[in-house]
């Protein structure tokens, strides 16, 4: 590797240093308590898929260039040169990690593997070795934010088509737009995904609850976060933050997308509006009596998959259960403890990479398939787009014969009075 390229990469590495990253890089004792935490290791049994091994790869480069020991006695900590080989190892580590942070629950110190992997991902971007699809998707999102006027007309036409569907399926009061867009001083800004399934049921519930809401021009998904690129993550997130500020909304509601929710809720710092997930908002409507659900609508055994970014990493744990209590009598828990729930295996950009990662995603989610099968449920519900795609793939691959559904769609379908 050329000296200049390596220096640039090391600058990127250094840019990720903060107090917490130093904690994580200095502390691991390689005790091995985290080993069984990773669903990839549990499913495939290779040491390279354990949390400690993954961050040790980053730590070896750290020891080589950022600690005197790396120069004086490199073999002490197996300090490793940054070159094509180590980058390719980092690729395997970073893009086999879904960032679910289950290992963080196991670690006696609480090392956040997702955060350490963000160094690996950033180095890969610097070396132009990151998955191109993710970069393309992220850059498209950013471009759309920059030259929004070009997309606006097409977007609005698309929304008008969806409105017809909302009105057809769920009668809304005459004279009100079924999907309001660009409403100043609305109480709630809903940030959806590009896709009718993320907009239509949500609109039905907002309208049924009499919410003063408006739909965001932008999609929630943050490909920058999947890439581990802080600059792109911020650009994509800020489009939403700026829109919310411009419209002076009181609350931003993120659709069923775990990563988008966590980025805005947990990683954005303090914001002049409340950030909620659509699951929290639906639970609130039920609690306040603003919507009523038909409890007899679903008669199958139902289980719920806690999306990692929403539950373990976002704190939305009781709300989906509360909603399901109002939709069915036949709910069965998947994991004795939601914070210990297995990752679906599709996070960290793996689902966004589509067919390219399919083989790996299926092999690495064997434990998830077993966990789902053990519930005996016929319907599998979740509240995250990524999880939904991955769980549908698992359903096909492992022939589980389940009905995989979005929680928000079930709420919309279960509305009484429509």
């Amino acid at each position, binding site marked *: 590797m050329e000296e200049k390229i390596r220096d640039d990469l090391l600058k990127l590495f250094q840019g990720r*240093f*903060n*107090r*917490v*990253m*130093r*904690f*994580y890089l*200095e*502390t*691991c*004792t*390689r*005790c*091995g*308590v985290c*080993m*069984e935490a990773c669903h990839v290791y549990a499913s495939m049994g290779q*040491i390279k898929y*354990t949390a*400690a*091994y993954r961050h*040790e790869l980053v730590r070896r480069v750290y020891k080589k260039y950022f*600690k*005197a*020991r790396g120069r004086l006695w490199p*073999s*002490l*900590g*197996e300090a490793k040169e940054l070159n094509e080989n180590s980058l390719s190892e980092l690729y395997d580590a970073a893009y086999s990690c879904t960032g679910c*942070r289950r290992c*963080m*629950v*196991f*670690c*006696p*110190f*609480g*090392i*956040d593997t997702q*955060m350490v992997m963000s160094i690996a991902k950033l180095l890969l971007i610097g070396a132009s070795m990151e998955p191109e699809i993710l970069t393309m998707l992220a850059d498209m999102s950013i471009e759309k934010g920059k030259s929004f006027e070009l997309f606006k007309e097409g977007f609005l036409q698309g929304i008008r088509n969806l409105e017809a569907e909302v009105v057809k399926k769920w009668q809304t009061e005459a004279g009100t737009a079924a999907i309001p867009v660009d409403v100043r001083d609305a109480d709630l800004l809903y940030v959806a995904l590009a896709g009718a399934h993320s907009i239509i049921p949500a609109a039905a519930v907002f309208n049924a609850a009499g919410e003063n809401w408006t739909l965001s021009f932008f999609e929630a998904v943050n490909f920058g976060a999947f890439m581990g690129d802080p600059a792109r993550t911020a650009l994509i997130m800020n489009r939403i933050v700026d829109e919310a500020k411009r419209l002076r909304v009181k609350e931003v509601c993120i659709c069923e997308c775990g990563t988008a929710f966590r980025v805005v809720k*947990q*990683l*954005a*710092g303090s914001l002049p509006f409340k950030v909620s997930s659509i699951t929290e908002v639906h639970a609130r409507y039920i609690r306040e009596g603003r919507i009523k659900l038909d409890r007899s609508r679903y008669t199958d055994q139902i289980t719920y998959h806690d999306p990692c970014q929403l*539950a*373990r*990493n*976002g*704190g939305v*744990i009781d709300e989906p259960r509360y909603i399901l209590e109002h939709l069915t009598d036949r709910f069965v828990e998947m994991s004795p403890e*939601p*914070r210990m729930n297995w990752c679906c295996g599709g996070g960290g950009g793996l689902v966004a990479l589509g067919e390219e990662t399919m083989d790996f995603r299926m092999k690495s989610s064997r434990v998830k398939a077993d966990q789902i099968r053990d519930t005996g449920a016929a319907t599998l519900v979740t509240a995250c787009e990524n999880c939904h795609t991955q769980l549908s793939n698992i359903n096909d691959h492992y022939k589980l014969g389940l009905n995989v559904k979005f929680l928000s769609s079930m709420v919309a379908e279960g509305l009484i009075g429509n």
Partner: protein
Amino acid sequence: METIYYLVLIPMVYIAFTVFVLGTALRLVKIFRGPSAPGKLQIYPEKRSKWLWAAYDTFLFPTVLRRKPSLWVFLMLFHIAFILLIIGHLELIKEFAFFQIISHEVFPGKGFIGLTLSICLLYFLFRRFSSPVRELSVPEDYYLLILLFLTVFFGSEMDWARRWYYYDTISVDSYRGYLFSLITLKPELPYEITSSGHTFMLVLHIFFANLFLIFFPFSQVMHSFLSLPMNKLRRG
């Protein structure tokens, strides 16, 4: 030989303590002066009080107990024994009435603290020789455990000899004479310290302990200081 004894027992101790204190302080300052991480790194569900739960995670290792109960037993024994060991060494410098709340003979533990530590360290070491922990380990993990084992073992032997075989040519007073002189920067080596049949054990004990102290600030043993703030981040 006497020169070597002198070098290990006096100048090397000063060097080791200087590296340990300054190194640890500077490294901690460097780490804590870094910018804080953007956003929240908390794991849910949340429990209050966060500080108390963070302390619980830090000092009782509940995650280890749940996943690896046998490792937890050894870890707990090791860390408790290590604290008692520090108290024991402080008492070898001078008398502390406070520690005598539970009345005991100096050095506490009747020889069992060193024995516990030695067994725990052997457990940690042999654990690393077998898969899958072997694949995770790097040379420093072994060096560190071997270094600690040697330190503890030679130190314990003197304690065992005194407590179990009544071989007490180096008395508590001799240790106090030597260690107190080091602290008051008027180092001297009492006659018994350098001419006992156990002198070589003492010299080896202090030699390895010095190496450990020198290595401390640059190794993962820094978790002694970082574990609590890290666990606090996880608790939110």
